């Protein structure tokens, strides 16, 4: 009697175990990376006494590793007004994280609320909401953001408003579709027959079932909002002069590409790492919450 090498099943088991461990790693590592960014964004500018408006023209456009007059080393170089690039990047990261978080909260709350109401009540509320969403989605979101930003002007608050307007639709759609799926499940029916009113049904019964997909979307959108803010600042319609932003730093650096390539390049790497972390995290959360998309 012939027998299969016992390793076939064993190999697959090992792969499954690695995949499970992999998902956990893909949640923890990005969180750690984002955490490091948060800490660095708060601490570094303070430690370096970073002031976006202060110019130290003697040490402008110095390459990474240059020794500074006060004894420290500008290990990522200096920008066109002599500020330490590392401190500038971290201050810009602070704005990115702030704008990202604020936008997600605002767009998320509004979007989820409207989406749940539309899905729950249906009827004309749903139709109106869907038509508005259709119209809004006809604008590439950068376009909408540029247009509104040019009207409102620059500034943190305005950028948050602009990006919230551009992004609430995603949350609304996810929440709405989730509510539509769950609306007719037995446990909702059961709650209804027990006399639960609309508010209770929406917030206590349906909302918990929507959390998972919303969380996945929120994570991914967080990264996309950060990219959008950087793009707006790059184009000149985001952060004003006194407020640092990774986007405007890169934009300022384009004039010095030949002489000081680090000004445009390094902040982009920081952006890339941060956004990549959110992307990996979002993917891992999706794997964790939706096991049928995962393989055994």
């Amino acid at each position, binding site marked *: *009697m*012939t*027998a*299969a090498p*016992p390793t*076939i*099943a064993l*190999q*697959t*088991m090992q*792969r*499954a175990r690695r*995949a*499970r461990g992999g998902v956990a790693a893909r949640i923890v590592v990005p969180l750690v990376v984002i955490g490091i960014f948060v800490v660095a964004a708060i601490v570094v500018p303070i430690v370096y006494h970073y002031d976006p408006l202060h110019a130290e023209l003697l040490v402008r456009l110095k390459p990474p590793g240059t020794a500074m007059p006060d004894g420290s080393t500008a290990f990522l170089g200096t920008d066109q007004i002599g500020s330490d690039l590392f401190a500038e990047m971290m201050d810009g990261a602070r704005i990115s994280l702030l704008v990202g978080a604020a936008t997600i909260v605002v767009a998320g709350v509004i979007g989820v609320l409207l989406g749940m109401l539309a899905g729950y009540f249906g009827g004309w509320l749903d139709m109106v909401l869907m038509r508005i969403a259709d119209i809004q989605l006809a604008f590439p979101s950068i376009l909408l953001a540029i247009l509104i930003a040019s009207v409102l002007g620059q500034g943190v608050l305005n950028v948050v408003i602009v990006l919230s307007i551009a992004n609430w639709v995603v949350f609304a759609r996810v929440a709405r579709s989730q509510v539509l799926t769950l609306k007719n499940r037995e446990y909702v029916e059961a709650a209804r027959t027990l006399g639960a009113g609309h508010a209770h049904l929406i917030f206590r019964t349906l909302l918990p079932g929507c959390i998972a997909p919303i969380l996945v979307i929120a994570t991914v959108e967080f990264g996309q909002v950060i990219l959008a803010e950087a793009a707006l600042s790059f184009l000149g319609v985001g952060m004003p002069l006194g407020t640092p932003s990774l986007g405007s730093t890169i934009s300022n650096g384009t004039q010095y590409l030949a002489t000081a390539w680090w000004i445009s390049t390094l902040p982009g790497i920081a952006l890339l790492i941060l956004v990549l972390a959110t992307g990996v995290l979002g993917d891992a959360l999706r794997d964790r919450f939706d096991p049928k998309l995962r393989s*055994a």
Partner: protein
Amino acid sequence: MTMTRAAATAPASDSAALLSVRDLKVEFSTSAGVVRALDGVSFDVHEGETLAILGESGSGKSVTAQAIMALLPKPTGSIVSGEILYGGRDLAWEPVRRVRELCATEIAMIFQDPLSSLNPVFRIGYQVAEPFRRRLGMSKKEAWAKALELLKRVGIPDAEHRIRDYPHQFSGGQRQRIMIAMAIALDPRLLIADEPTTALDVTVQKQIMGLLADLQAETGMAMVLISHDLGVVAEVAERVAIMYAGRIVETGATRDVYDFPAHPYTRGLLDSIPSEASMGERLTPIDGSPPNLLALPSGCPFHPRCPFAIEVCRAAVPPLRTPDGWEPGHLAACHRSEEVLPHG
């Protein structure tokens, strides 16, 4: 190896077996652990006969069919040991490509849910003609003509026009007929039907079973009918094999097994069927619940639910054997078959 081959082809019954499964073991690796879906399954199918494989969900009946046709989901499922002998070859250990050559031409299969088993974006004519075009190299015209013949033979009304329709435009019963047409296209010697009527209404079930019986009479092909419904297969199958927890627990001629069950599980199944005679009385289900394949009980897997269980049942796996003094074709895997029989 030659010895086993010889043993396999020296049959216990009269005619040589068309398909011979010997001690087949199949495992699945899941995120919860390794599941032994088939634990030493053995049976024969002879030319022209119909064997019904019966069992609950999780008993391993569909896995058996998948293993034969090399359709086990990769990489989770794999054949661990055993033999699947057909035409002098052992399909369990041949490369998948070679086994697939036998599919449709020698061994064909139809599935449980005809809606998801037919490709929604291709016309049914295309799908039924496909075996002729791809396997036999026929021209499109010839293949579609053959497909039309087949569709008429399985009883699709207005076949000339409906051949250009899509699967979603047919009823469930018609879709199953289309699947049957696709399966018998190349005149296979063995048809495996995996729960062909489970997704259908009762009246349609009878029609489909009737169609299968007619086709079998016409072509002389053998059939393996997989089901959980003892009643549906009763009239069509000559022999049955009852599966439980990945093993065959009883097998024999249909009438023998139904009238004289030699295994407590079979007895329990037969007793639990509501009949006219028992109207007004309580139903008698089998105690307990189906086994957890990740953690099978020791010894006989049925012993926790068995009214006949004794000490040895927990200790030793009962072999499939003919109860003392009983007919050679009727086997059961129970230490106490002799006591079970008189009660049947």
